[in-house]
């Protein structure tokens, strides 16, 4: 799994987006990805696989009182986007997603043929 800068730069031209921070852990059976998307309601979160790209997109759904004037702004773009390239041994058909309190958790298992196999080293 690696980040795809080319695609991200292209999509940036369409619409600017924040890059959500992620943690990625890999074990023998697959990859677990956590992404922080605070302010995105579940219905405005979009996780999809296109070809070999995993795309995470979300839009902020904050409710502002009428007539509010911002005085200090750190989160200045109302959407998040991040694209990863999936490697071939990952099974993109079986991605499982959970979303709670602004944290997305994705589990991407490795395909059957890519599960670990012990290889015996022979002394020749």
């Amino acid at each position, binding site marked *: 799994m690696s980040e795809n*800068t080319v695609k991200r730069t292209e999509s940036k031209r369409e619409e600017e987006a924040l890059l959500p921070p*992620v943690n990625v*852990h*890999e*074990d023998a059976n697959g990859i677990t990805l956590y992404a922080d998307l*605070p302010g995105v309601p579940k219905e405005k979160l979009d996780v999809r696989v296109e070809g070999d790209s995993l795309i995470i997109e979300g839009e902020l759904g*904050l409710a502002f009182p009428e007539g*509010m004037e911002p005085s200090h702004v750190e989160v200045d773009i109302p959407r998040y986007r991040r694209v990863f390239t999936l490697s071939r041994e990952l099974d993109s058909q079986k991605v499982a997603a959970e979303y709670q*309190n602004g944290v997305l958790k994705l589990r991407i298992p490795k395909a059957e043929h890519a599960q670990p196999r012990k290889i015996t080293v022979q002394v020749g």
Partner: protein
Amino acid sequence: MRYRSFFPRNLFADLERLQREMDLNAGPAASIRGGTRGYPAMNVGSTAQSVEIFAFAPGMDPASLNVQIEKGLLTISGERKVDGVPQGAAAHIDERFSGPFRRVVSLPDDIDANAVSAIYRDGVLRVSVGRKAVAQALRIDIQ
């Protein structure tokens, strides 16, 4: 176990990350309480009736968030625990904040410390502090 590749994953992504880290620690702080950036990220706005503070702190248990108002200062603190790396797994990317945090915002003089509400939703804490009625635009009749 922390895994580091000998080959950078992607030069541009790493440069961008570096840039962001530099932005985080950039320059002399103009505010007496340090930089204007920190964790959680905050947006502040106001209306005639209230001051609204949005703190972007995802993945928290609302009970572990502390919100305090004292002497015109609003303090938001807590501790964020993120899922660690399971045994036998490798951490390829580790960007999410973890650990204790505290941020302080100074409030205007006309706030009413008894009219405060706090809601935690989709990982954002919204604190709404009411303003005293006196301060709301007073129309003066001209005789």
